């Protein structure tokens, strides 16, 4: 599966390996390996089917098709597609999990009020 093309979409390809802190103000598609932390405050992160991410992630939306190890904090939504293998706690407002996805961790749904209160 190839990444959706968009002018505001940064892509990390299959052969790319990154270690460190990733932050940005555009959507990000990862099909390679990333280790560290990822912060995309008002944008979305997609981990492609070949993606292997070991990082805490903070983003508006997080879509996982590959492997992700780390805690996920999404201000809007998290989607785990059927090929997703996720180990970590998920905190979000909305979540969608396809049949076949693997999750080891906590799911905590925070409403807007809770989020505003910083709970």
């Amino acid at each position, binding site marked *: 599966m190839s990444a959706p093309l968009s002018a505001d979409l940064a892509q990390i390809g299959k052969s790319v390996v990154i270690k460190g802190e990733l932050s940005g103000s555009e959507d990000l598609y990862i099909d390679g390996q990333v280790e560290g932390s990822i912060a995309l405050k008002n944008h979305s992160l997609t981990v492609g089917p070949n993606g292997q991410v070991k990082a805490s992630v903070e983003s508006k939306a997080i879509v996982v098709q590959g492997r992700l190890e780390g805690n996920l904090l999404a201000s809007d939504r998290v989607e785990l597609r059927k090929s997703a293998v996720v180990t970590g706690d998920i905190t979000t407002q909305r*979540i969608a999990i396809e049949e076949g996805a*693997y*999750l*080891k961790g906590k799911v905590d*749904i925070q409403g807007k009020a809770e989020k505003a209160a910083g709970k």
Partner: protein
Amino acid sequence: MASVTQNFMKLFRGSSGSPESAENQAAQKLTRRSSGLGELSRLWDSETPLCVLDLGSTSPANIRFFTERTHRIYSEDLLVASTDPALVTKDEEGQVILDSRKFLADNLVYPAAHFDVVLCWNLPDYLEESLVRPVMGRLWSVLKPGGMLLAFFHTKDAGPDSPCYRFHIIGKDTLEMQRIILKREARRGPTGAVHTAITDGFRLQRVFNNRHIETLFRDFASIKFFLARDNVREVLVVR
């Protein structure tokens, strides 16, 4: 959705030998009433968010069920975790076993007295012998005092080919059951190890009688049995 009546005799029985493909078997969902779940359902209306641990296969339905009620759900598939080849070791007599210490170092790692409810489903019947007691001991410690654990046990009528199911909560006392058919290709497990040992689902390891079940949960404060018409004993224990 198939009716409960239609499904009664299909549940928890050995494979029928029908030529159904693995995909069809995995796709079929059978409904089942659960008295134990019904008993637990009194807790779901709690205004205080509950911590619930689901030890079955990741179930979108269960996650939805609890998060809609503002409870926190933890999902951990212990059967899949137990297939990690790195766990294989030998005991003092040279018998091949799974290393329970390593297993518990990687799994069920939670603070003491953390959960209000643990959904064990049919885990004890399918878990490898050397892991059963250590896992139950750990579950006791992560349950809050007064917390409840629900487990299902086959009766002696079950054969070794009794299919292993995953359980989806679809009502306060109703479950949807879906046969677990593992893919034949090698797959990386949660620890990153490649699983090749299991090709066709999990096999029933043993059948507990009532005394065995009572011994298994002897550290718990109380135990309640529900015998269903499909030869399954549901057990609800309170720490």
